[in-house]
């Protein structure tokens, strides 16, 4: 039983992390941080830089939460990766950050948050910054 948070270095991701930390503390479960970039390009804006990871680890320690960071790249859709890791870590809740998307934006680019919400087989906590 763990708390799984899908993180990217954005305000939405930050909000998700904060909420996930609270959840993990409340439930007394370890926190799994999934920061998985799309495999392929050498550089990705989705990867959390080292000092951010360090800072988040310190915050977790201060709250008495056991933190596990996963940064391995994935292929395909991030939504599938989140759901796969949720299954693997036996997550009791998935925490994600929500970003406002226009209907056209959702049509062309899709919404991974929407896919996670609709396809998850466990509770999902969607947070706004």
């Amino acid at each position, binding site marked *: 039983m763990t708390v799984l948070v899908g993180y990217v270095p954005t305000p939405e991701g930050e909000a998700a992390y904060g909420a996930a930390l609270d959840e993990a503390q409340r439930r007394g479960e370890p926190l799994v941080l999934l920061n998985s970039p*799309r495999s392929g*390009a*050498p550089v*990705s804006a989705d990867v959390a830089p080292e000092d951010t990871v360090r800072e988040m680890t310190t915050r977790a320690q201060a709250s008495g939460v056991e933190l596990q960071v996963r940064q391995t*790249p994935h292929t395909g859709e991030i939504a599938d990766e989140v759901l796969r890791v949720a299954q693997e870590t036996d997550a009791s809740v998935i925490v994600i950050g929500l970003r406002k998307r226009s209907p056209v934006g959702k049509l062309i680019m899709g919404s991974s948050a929407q896919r996670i919400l609709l396809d998850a087989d466990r509770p999902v906590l969607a947070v706004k910054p």
Partner: protein
Amino acid sequence: MDLAPVLDGFTVVLEPTNLLYCLIGVVIGMLVGVLPGLGPAATIAILLPITFGVEAVTAIIMLAGIFYGAQYGGTITSVLLRLPGEASSVVTVFDGHALARQGKAGTALGIAAIGSFIGGTVSILALTFLAPLVAGFALDFGPPEYTALALLGILLVATVSSGSRLKAVIAAAIGLLLATVGRDAFTGGERFTFGNLSLADGLDFVPIAMGLFGLGEILYNLEERHTAVHAPATVANVWPSRKDLRQSSGSIGRGSVLGFVLGILPGGGATLSSLAAYAMEKKRSKTPERFGHGAVEGVAGPETANNAAATSSFIPLLTLGIPANATMAVIFGALLIQGVSPGPQLVTQEPELFWGVVNSLYIGNILLLIMSIPLVGLFVKILRVRPAILAPITVLITLVGVYTVNNDVFDIVLVIVFGALGYLMKKLGFDPGPLVLAFVLGTLLEDSLRRSLLIFDGDATEFFARPISGILLVLFLLVALLPPVRSAIVRRRTTSTETRTKELV
């Protein structure tokens, strides 16, 4: 020395079209250096069709810009991401990335930019004085000298190229064979054309280069497993301190000279000079333990050397008509397409082209220095594009581009065939560079050889009777025979040492 043609060269470079193409070349070069995948040789090959529509000077200015621009681009990823973008920037990873981890990425990039600029400038100055001398000396060359020179050039490139020597020479031999396809210049008979009309005029250089270097590399990269993904790096302090500059001044000086010398040698080139410069700096240093942990000399030396070498590798091509490495071979081909025959007569017969290209190196170097630091952020953003998206676009550019050369679908077939060949060669350890080099030199070599034999009445020993061709051929034999002899001797020494040790025990 007559300065008039040199100054005329500047007038040529400063024409708006040429300036624009210089800028385009340098930017594309930096891009190519940053992005993993295509190298400068492949990019120049793929862009060959563009050279048809412009003047010779303009085309070569752009292609040259791509070449030395790529030397700098590779530094950016080496320093920031520990990902060498170009083979000549691999050494920069050791100390450059260490500096970045200490928060001094700007120092590393700044030193690299300054060193590259100085190295390039020193090389160009030396080129300006040396090239006409060499060309003048070579005007006395006859067919025997050219035979020996071409042979030596091909062998040096095959021998000094990274990879199995044996396979590189085999690649060169295949290149020479391919050059014989078509009509024989002396007798007019057809060779190896198998009745195919398209082959009657010989194999066209452009599809071969585009296929071997362009498509071949893209196909080869398909098998690459993806590397680690990094967060976009921030570059804080953008300029090196005075202390750093003083510390690196020696390495920059040494790197310039070393790079210049190694670049002229066929097969030498930017990669070898960056390695040699690093090794030299480390050996000379009183505190060699700093190397690998952020020694500025470890960045200054190699970066200076590789730009100096990239520039000086133009000398054999522009003065003797002998390309010093694979990229120069492609540029040689580009010149042939434009109807320009590179050789010693180039300086005197086409001074505008010669000095236009040489002087564009100055301008291009300045452009690089100006643009390098501000554009770093942009290039890191560009690295976010997935190679999977760029690959099909590049493939289509190649396929459609080769069609535009002759409006012949057969060329597309050729480029695909050579693309497959290029893939197989890289996969199996054969460097395609010597093949292209031998292909462009093949006609010249055979021509000179047959003329020489006619002059000598079939007596091949006459080659050694003439001083220049004799010396060159002796060098050729030395380079060809020395390595296998050396390893055979050493092997025997090893076994005798081993038997001695066994006896002692």
